[in-house]
């Protein structure tokens, strides 16, 4: 044998000692205050949504728990709305709406978008041209307007909001996936796999998908933030959740009319939206930096 493995060689390796991905992740998440705060808020919001019935001090739908437009008090920490419903409880339940719309939409959009992107990127040729042309056409419309129009055609309701937002989100995923597939496809290991006689499906699942997963994960996290923002905007405009359901955007809209009398009514849900979006953006940012191979060695 040519290359004798001696004990001395273990000390002298050419490849630099790698810092494991978990360590990098930990370093980014604990080391950067903004990311750490974002992650903490994210966990908090997730837990709130999960245990909303336990946390809410009052029934969010019960009209007249106190007088309408009550100011904050010990009993009602954030006061009450025009119908006398407890704002804090509605806020807590609103997190469910926001996260539900966010997660379901992201899942639908990612699954469809990634599939389309993989097909376009891997096969190239006519499928590529066809899919990308359709995607480009959809992308001509502002996302919010697109969702607005679709929701208008389908009618209100949370379900239709999800469909509308998913549709608006698909092009983004398809484009990013397609671009990444095109670059991963050029790697010699993909060519090697094809030349070994592997089928296209095998190559895509074994070699391409695992190597585009990380950037997709970052994208999903970031998009959760903008989806929550979009859902809030739609519900602010009065599309989406139907009364008496609680949604942050709709709460801002309701409170807007009583801005002088009870500013907290629209301020509280606004802060909730902002914090949640901020949290997801920060976590996405942190993930991106931790997973970016180009930043390896710099962090």
């Amino acid at each position: 044998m040519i290359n004798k493995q001696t004990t001395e060689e273990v000390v002298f390796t050419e490849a630099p000692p790698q810092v494991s991905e978990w360590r990098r992740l930990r370093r980014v998440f604990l080391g950067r205050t903004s990311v750490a705060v974002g992650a903490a808020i994210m966990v908090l919001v997730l837990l709130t949504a999960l245990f909303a019935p336990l946390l809410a001090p009052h029934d969010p739908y019960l009209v007249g728990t106190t007088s309408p437009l009550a100011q904050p008090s010990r009993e009602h920490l954030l006061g009450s709305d025009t119908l006398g419903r407890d704002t804090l409880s509605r806020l807590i339940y609103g997190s469910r709406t926001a996260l539900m719309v966010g997660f379901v939409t992201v899942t639908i959009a990612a699954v469809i978008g990634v599939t389309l992107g993989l097909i376009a990127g891997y096969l190239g040729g006519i499928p590529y041209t066809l899919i990308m042309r359709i995607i480009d056409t959809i992308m001509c419309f502002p996302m919010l307007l697109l969702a607005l129009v679709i929701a208008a055609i389908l009618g209100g309701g949370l379900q239709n909001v999800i469909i509308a937002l998913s549709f608006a989100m698909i092009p983004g995923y398809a484009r990013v996936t397609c671009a990444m597939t095109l670059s991963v496809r050029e790697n010699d290991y993909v060519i090697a796999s094809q030349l070994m006689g592997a089928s296209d499906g095998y190559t895509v699942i074994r070699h391409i998908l695992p190597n585009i997963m990380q950037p997709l994960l970052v994208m999903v996290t970031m998009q959760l933030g903008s989806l929550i923002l979009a859902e809030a905007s739609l519900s602010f405009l009065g599309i989406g959740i139907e009364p008496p359901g609680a949604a942050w955007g709709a709460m801002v809209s309701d409170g807007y009319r009583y801005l002088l009398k009870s500013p907290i009514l629209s301020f509280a849900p606004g802060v909730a939206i902002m914090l949640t979006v901020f949290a997801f953006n920060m976590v996405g940012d942190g993930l991106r930096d931790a997973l970016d191979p180009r930043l390896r060695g710099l962090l």
Partner: protein
Amino acid sequence: MSVTVGLSVGIIAAIRRNRWPDKVFTPLTYLGTTIPTFWLGILLIYVFGLRLGWLPIAGYTSPTKDFFFSIRQTVMPVICLSLFGIASSARQMRSSMLEVIQQDYIRTAWAKGLSEREVIQKHALKNSLLPVITIMGFQLRMIFGGSVIVETIFAIPGMGSLLVSSIFGQDYVVVQAVTLVIAIIVLLVNVVVDISYGLLDPRIRYD
């Protein structure tokens, strides 16, 4: 348009990287991209319109009718609309600049004995603008989306509020027309972006 404002602020924030402006601006840009447009509008109305009473809270007056009143009316909607653009183009500009200064040709520029100002202005700026221009196309679409909300809040009779009211009124002909107009504008903007990209980047030339 507010895009121009956004971009220039973005450049300033980006060039002064890793010094105090960076430390101040970067967190602000994060804030700018997370704050909901409609909520910002309400905040502005509350503070400047209702509490301080400096600016009219809503409505639209033609500038030919009462120029100063019209300007005062547009201040808040413009801030509302442009904040997201300013914030995200500043972020984009910063990361793009940081990437460009890692490139080999910037090292060449340093090796020529140029000063930092010359290296940044002559060698890094043009290159780092390229990805930002692509983003600007997206931003314009975001502004259209935002205008729906801003027009609703500030009760401005524009295309956005027309769309919303026709959607609620189930007037689909108007919906179709407005959508078409917006799509055409976005397409035109894309063309402008493509052309300016070609002007900035000599590697792309159109036959």
